């Protein structure tokens, strides 16, 4: 995300998912998922709750283990081997619905922790990077505070900065605005839009259709563990082909 004019969706494949299947016990959550994400591509995944959209992106950095199928991230084939999993996780940043900041550490320390322990950066350099990204999400003035002292919107911006500090190739967003009070949603979306405009490869599970219309290259609709429809936002919102998609859109946009 260093150059604003990074190559767009015509780059090489960043994430390749083939024939992905996952079960919770007997429950088939993900069914034959095929998905290729190119470098710089911005994807919004939507769908009713329980459709498997969160599970899908959590498989990409192996927060969830899958039973069948192939996942390749940045050329690394996912296996059960923890070394490979960690190699993938170093390329992938994640932002959670409930922020998951470390409450016993200050905002600043939250951003430095993994830089020091995973990337083995010298303390100085880690602090510099942390400050840089905290400034980017406009929260540098709160650096010495603990997460519990910040509002939800501020916490989520810190969480984004924390993930960016690792300079990931891909960012996963798992319903980043769902736990926020309405007046705080915009401050988080603004950060995400900025990030998208800089060319970051992004996969966002979200119900913010305005965000999808503005920045997404592709919108994916999931239901019952499968990809029902995927299309560029104009097509997706104006001419959805599947009935399920039409129903879903009428439910979330129709009032």
């Amino acid at each position, binding site marked *: 995300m260093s150059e604003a004019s990074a190559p767009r969706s015509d780059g090489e494949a960043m994430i390749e998912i083939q024939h992905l299947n996952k079960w919770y016990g007997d429950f088939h959550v993900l069914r034959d998922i095929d998905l290729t994400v190119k470098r710089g591509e911005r994807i919004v995944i939507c769908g009713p709750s329980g459709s498997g959209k969160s599970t899908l992106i959590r498989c990409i*950095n192996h*927060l969830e283990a899958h039973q069948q199928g192939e996942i390749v991230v940045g050329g690394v084939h996912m296996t059960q081997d923890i070394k490979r999993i960690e190699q993938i*996780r170093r390329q992938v940043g994640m932002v959670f619905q409930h922020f998951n900041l*470390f409450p*016993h550490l200050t905002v600043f320390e939250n951003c430095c922790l993994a830089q020091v322990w995973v990337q083995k950066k010298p303390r100085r350099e880690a602090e510099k990077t942390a400050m840089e990204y905290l400034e980017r999400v406009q929260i540098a003035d709160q650096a010495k505070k603990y997460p519990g002292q910040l509002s939800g919107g501020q916490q989520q911006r810190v969480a984004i900065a924390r993930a960016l500090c690792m300079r990931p190739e891909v960012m996963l967003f798992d319903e980043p605005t769902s736990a926020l009070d309405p007046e705080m949603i915009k401050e988080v979306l603004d950060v995400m839009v900025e990030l998208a405009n800089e060319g970051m490869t992004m996969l966002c599970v979200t119900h913010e259709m305005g965000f999808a219309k503005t920045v997404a290259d592709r919108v994916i609709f999931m239901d019952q563990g499968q990809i029902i429809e995927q299309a560029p936002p104009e097509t997706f919102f104006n001419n959805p082909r599947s009935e399920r998609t039409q129903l879903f859109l009428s439910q979330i946009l129709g009032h």
Partner: protein
Amino acid sequence: MAAIPNTARVEMIEARLPPNQSRGLVGWLRANLFSGPLNSLVSIVTIVVLVRLIWPFLEWSLFDADWIGTTREDCSGEGACWVFISARFESIVYGFYPEMARWRVDIVFAMMALLIAWLAIPRLPAKRWVGLFTLVGFPVVAYFLLVGGSFGLLYVPTREWGGLMLTLTVATVGIVGSLPLGVLLALGRRSKMPLVKGVSVIFIEFWRGVPLITVLFMASVMLPLFVPSEVEFDKLLRALIGIMFFWSAYMAEVVRGGLQAIDKGQNEAGQALGLGYWRRMRLIILPQALKLVIPGIVNTFIALFKDTSLVLIIGLFDLLAIIRAGLTDTNWLGFAMEGYVFAALVFWIFCFGMSRYSQYIERRLHTGH
């Protein structure tokens, strides 16, 4: 239809201070102890009962007590005679430790006090190195000083140890050993690896299911049956290991309670950042989990400290045992009250100290809202 009036505030209300509710001592007494006839009656009865219970004890232990002297003749017999304690003070502190080597115990005591104070006072620097020395260097130094037998120091077998120094040795080793072991067991019990989990569960359930007295008896009587006779285990060492294992099982369950209270999102956030298992535990999960269960941990420390007195049943002379032994001294028959009250006071001071310090730490580590 009546129109709904459209109102809007033009001027905002400024923030004001709350009404003053503290009205001095008299106000506090009236509000809390004498707010009505029934409350007043209960307060008066309670105060009278408390005074009648506590006053005689104060008279006996302080106002009528004898403090100065060296022999039994210095006791007036009206109240407690603390001469009994002061005359036996050396043996209460050092047990049967040879007099000429007691300076070594003093050094260990002083070092321990200094290190604990250093770690306990937040303003002092280099906590990490002092902590490391306390856990690694100090035990080695203490071992060589207390046991002796090298560097030209007189060898003092552990059967000559006793009194407060033995109590503190057992308690310190127990506390310092059982916490890390308990943490490992708690992590083991939550492990996804069946073997690690199984071993942890069996270990915890075994030691928790056996009374400490049984553990001590087994350590002193049964263990020699199982190990070849050439291997001679020190009796104190056996007791120390028994106590450490026993309390680590309790500690494990306390810590597990804390681990379970941590949201799984914390672990996931650590994973997503690429942190490995041990780093996630050490940097993210354990600091939060241990903080949550400080009351439980300190509760276990206090129970451990008090239960060190059980070592007297396998013939080790801890603080309580040495005082009891003093009671049978023919020169000092009939001073059981003084002896037990003093033993209770010493135990209480240490336990109360731990309790207060833990409350301070809890307040200090509070970061949330």
